[in-house]
């Protein structure tokens, strides 16, 4: 591990002998999940609970002429059938725009469609019954009469004057456009020895969480209070929006998030059917449960990455990259998603292209258009895979053009490790990155020269293997610059409360959430380390707006960096408070005392002085024995939000080693390497597993995953048999290495790691495929790299 400490020589609470920081301790919550004793929302049952099933549009764009639900209403067990109009009396519509994305527009979206459906899968009626099976039976006999309208499905023609405008009040199908022109791009291209251009095409894909979206909404008419049990990454955001659109105060809404069966950004939004479920509970005055089935998941969980991006790169013969230029087009479905909007991905693409490199010449245009397809929005690594694939694809094409090795061209152009702080052409500020240390480490880990020799030897035997390299930057620890400045009530700060209980154990309430990343573990590790308390005596409570401080939650690789720092600061205060009381009890001074192994000890020699259990007993039950004027405060709360840097950028580099069967077009992934730099590693194993899981999601996009729509806007593969995801048999082992450049903005020094894997995996694979196919002169800039794509490029079909 290469350590480049931001504060060399300073020993903090985190460097103490029994610190859990930097240790791969097991997560405390695993036993429950392994024994089948977790509590996912789909497991929940409440008294008098009704089950909702939505009747959904089979058309991509149609007028609703009539809904005949008479027969369905008569089925035994049916509680209510509710249309969009009836529900609109309970819940108001929303518009997914943010003011800092200038010009972004969208139309009001209702919980259930009123008179028109805009994508296949949009709900037109809700059926509530005593069981889901009965509700599904009833849904089958609801007769909806539609008048089909022209569907806008091709983003390439969405802006043509003859194309139907989906929302006439908006004037056109352009949701958002951003233009950027930095440096002197035209002069740079003119001065280049070579200019290479390519069209990059990305398959629309989705998150496929194994547990579908699920919500139980429980309106208590007597308390006039709504409790929402939902698998969400952002409970306080859900609280705010449910209250806003139901006409309630936030104090009337409690959001509880227990175990979540995968999220990856899919569960950080508010969906129309979730809003409808809240409203139905209020309308029907009873708990209502909605669990999406797999077809609904494919048709309504946000999609992402439907981009076509024309890219250009200029290069000199010595390998100097002179400029980047992109023209990105993306189709987001009929509405900008609420509340985070569907312009963020394109915006990120503009921000991130060329990000690892020195050149200041960069021009970009991104256009975001409406279509009659399911909505697109933020999914793990938002925009990064697009930006990375375009940038790294162009860099490899440039290298090939001038006959330079892909590693060599990167070494000549990556921002040097001593150049920080600095900024990208799009204005992103980099505090401290380590591109060169990372790629040098990667080259060693993978034995780059050895693989090149092996590749050459195998080529003679007609075996075509390729090596692909992809450097990347990742946005983590977002401040209010991400959403708050645009007017969204999405907290960028997080809070942690820690308290010593009456037996000297620690209870810790945090506003970050857990979907398997290890939020609970990292919080316990930090708190345990600072307090000198063993981890098994730290209990972490999360996912409950009634019982945690206010905060953002877990998304955009922010949990460890922001929530972790809040935990650190809260634990420091509690530690100070404990030592003050201990000093009073022991007739000592706080400076002479420390806490270790669940006891107050002498700072000088570690001699145990008083067990925390005993200290707590005195404080809570015999405060009369404390000196006069001593009021113990064994609970402390601290909040944290980054203020100096809008985002804590991280960096890394990935490599893929694969074999292409030029007869069948199949790709066999042989090995994958990642070196990344997320600053302080709180739990190296958890970081590695975030990276590996992220890589495999990126590999899915690279090879398999695509939502296939026909020209009428019908999603033709909305099931797990036809929409292919990575399974264990096709996935390679992944080696992960680290460079550690902590951020100075926090004492903890941690940056995010959740999206690094997904950011660069597809780019590495695509570059490796092109490397393998170089003898054939085939160049592919499209994913997923299906056998059909490969064989087409080879001219075989």
């Amino acid at each position: 591990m290469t350590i480049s400490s931001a504060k060399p020589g300073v020993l903090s609470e985190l460097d103490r002998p029994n610190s859990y920081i930097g240790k791969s301790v097991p997560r405390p919550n695993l036993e429950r999940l392994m024994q089948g004793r977790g509590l996912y929302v789909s497991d929940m049952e409440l008294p008098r609970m009704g089950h909702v099933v939505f009747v959904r549009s089979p058309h991509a764009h149609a007028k609703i002429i009539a809904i005949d639900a008479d027969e369905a209403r008569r089925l035994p067990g049916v509680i209510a059938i509710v249309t969009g109009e009836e529900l609109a009396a309970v819940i108001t519509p929303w518009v997914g725009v943010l003011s800092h994305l200038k010009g972004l527009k969208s139309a009001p979206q209702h919980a259930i469609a009123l008179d028109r459906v805009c994508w296949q899968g949009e709900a037109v009626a809700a059926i509530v019954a005593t069981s889901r099976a009965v509700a599904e039976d009833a849904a089958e006999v609801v007769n909806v009469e539609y008048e089909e309208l022209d569907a806008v499905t091709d983003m390439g023609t969405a802006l043509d004057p003859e194309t139907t405008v989906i929302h006439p009040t908006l004037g056109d199908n352009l949701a958002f456009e951003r233009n950027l022109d930095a440096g002197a791009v035209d002069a740079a291209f003119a001065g280049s020895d070579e200019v290479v251009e390519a069209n990059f095409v990305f398959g629309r894909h989705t998150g496929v969480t194994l547990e579908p979206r699920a919500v139980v909404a429980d309106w208590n008419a007597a308390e006039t209070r709504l409790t929402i049990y939902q698998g969400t990454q952002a409970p306080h955001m859900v609280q705010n929006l449910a209250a806003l659109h139901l006409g309630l105060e936030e104090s009337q809404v409690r959001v509880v998030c227990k175990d979540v069966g995968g999220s990856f950004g899919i569960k950080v939004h508010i969906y129309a059917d979730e809003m409808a479920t809240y409203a139905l509970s209020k309308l029907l005055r009873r708990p209502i449960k909605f669990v999406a089935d797999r077809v609904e998941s494919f048709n309504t969980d946000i999609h992402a990455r439907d981009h076509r991006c024309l890219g250009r790169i200029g290069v000199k013969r010595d390998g100097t990259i002179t400029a980047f230029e992109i023209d990105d087009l993306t189709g987001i479905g009929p509405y900008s998603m609420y509340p985070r909007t569907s312009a963020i991905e394109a915006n990120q693409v503009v921000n991130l292209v060329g990000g690892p490199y020195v050149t200041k010449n960069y021009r970009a245009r991104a256009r975001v258009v409406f279509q009659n397809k399911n909505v697109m929005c933020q999914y793990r690594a938002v925009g990064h895979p697009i930006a990375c694939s375009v940038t790294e694809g162009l860099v490899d094409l440039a290298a090939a053009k001038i006959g330079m090795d892909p590693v060599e061209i990167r070494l000549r152009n990556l921002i040097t490790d001593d150049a920080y702080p600095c900024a990208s052409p799009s204005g992103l500020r980099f505090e401290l990155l380590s591109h060169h240390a990372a790629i040098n480490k990667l080259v060693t880990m993978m034995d780059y020269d050895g693989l090149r020799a092996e590749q050459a030897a195998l080529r003679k035997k007609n075996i075509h293997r390729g090596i692909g390299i992809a450097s990347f930057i990742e946005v983590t620890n977002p401040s209010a610059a991400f959403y708050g400045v645009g007017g969204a009530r999405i907290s960028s700060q997080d809070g942690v409360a820690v308290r010593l209980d009456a037996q000297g154990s620690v209870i810790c309430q945090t506003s970050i959430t857990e979907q398997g990343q290890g939020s609970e573990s990292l919080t316990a590790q930090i708190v345990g380390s600072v307090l000198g308390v063993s981890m098994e005596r730290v209990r972490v409570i999360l996912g409950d707006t009634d019982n945690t401080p206010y905060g953002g939650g877990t998304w955009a690789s922010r949990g460890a960096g922001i929530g972790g720092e809040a935990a650190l600061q809260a634990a420091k205060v509690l530690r100070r408070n404990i030592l003050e009381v201990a000093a009073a009890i022991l007739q000592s001074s706080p400076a002479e005392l420390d806490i270790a192994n669940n006891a107050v000890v002498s700072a000088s020699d570690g001699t145990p002085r008083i067990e925390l259990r005993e200290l707590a007993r005195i404080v809570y039950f015999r405060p009369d024995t404390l000196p006069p004027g001593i009021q113990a405060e064994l609970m402390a709360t601290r909040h944290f939000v980054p203020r100096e840097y809008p985002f804590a950028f991280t960096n890394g580099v990935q490599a893929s080693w694969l074999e292409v069967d030029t007869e069948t077009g199949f790709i066999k992934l042989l090995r994958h390497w990642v070196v990344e730099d997320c600053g302080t590693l709180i739990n190296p194993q958890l970081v590695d597993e975030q990276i590996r899981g992220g890589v495999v999601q990126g590999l899915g996009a690279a090879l398999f995953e695509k939502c296939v729509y026909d020209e009428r806007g019908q999603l033709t593969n909305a099931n797990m048999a036809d929409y292919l995801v990575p399974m264990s048999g096709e996935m390679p082992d992944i080696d992960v290495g680290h460079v550690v450049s902590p951020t100075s903005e926090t004492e903890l020094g941690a940056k995010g790691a959740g999206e690094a894997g997904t950011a660069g995996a597809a780019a590495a694979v695509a570059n490796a495929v092109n490397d393998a196919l170089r003898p054939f002169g085939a160049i592919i800039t499209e994913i997923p790299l299906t056998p059909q794509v490969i064989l087409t490029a080879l001219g075989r079909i």
Partner: protein
Amino acid sequence: MPISLHVNGERVDANVLPRLNLADFLREHLQLTGTHIGCEHGVCGACTVRVDGEIVRSCLMLAVQTDGASVQTIEGLSDSGEVADLQAAFRDRNALQCGFCTPGMLMAAHDLLTQQAEPDRERIREHLSGNYCRCTGYQAIVDAIETTARGRTRSRP
């Protein structure tokens, strides 16, 4: 229809609709919610349980087909200690994140190790290829199973 079966060693008598699948029967009628439902069409493996010694997709089997059968779910295997070593290996290797696939994954892994004492990594990956995990990327799961296999081989007389 009346059915009578053993679930995790306990006798269960129930009246069920012919269309009720085993997964819904376990979850909704017996509140054994450790058996998860991911796709409802036999692809994801989250609902894997053991019926008369064979692992099955409980979403593809009807409850009435289990009349007279012996069914084990993750709750049963956990309480009996049958997969305790596998669970320990999963914990030490962080072979689960959200945990939704884990009960099915443990079922499939234990089934493999019952059939074959020391499968190589490729064989493990192949055996798990009907169990979808979106979080881990599978490597940690393969590692944990490999570790468990070695442990079981060593502890055999």
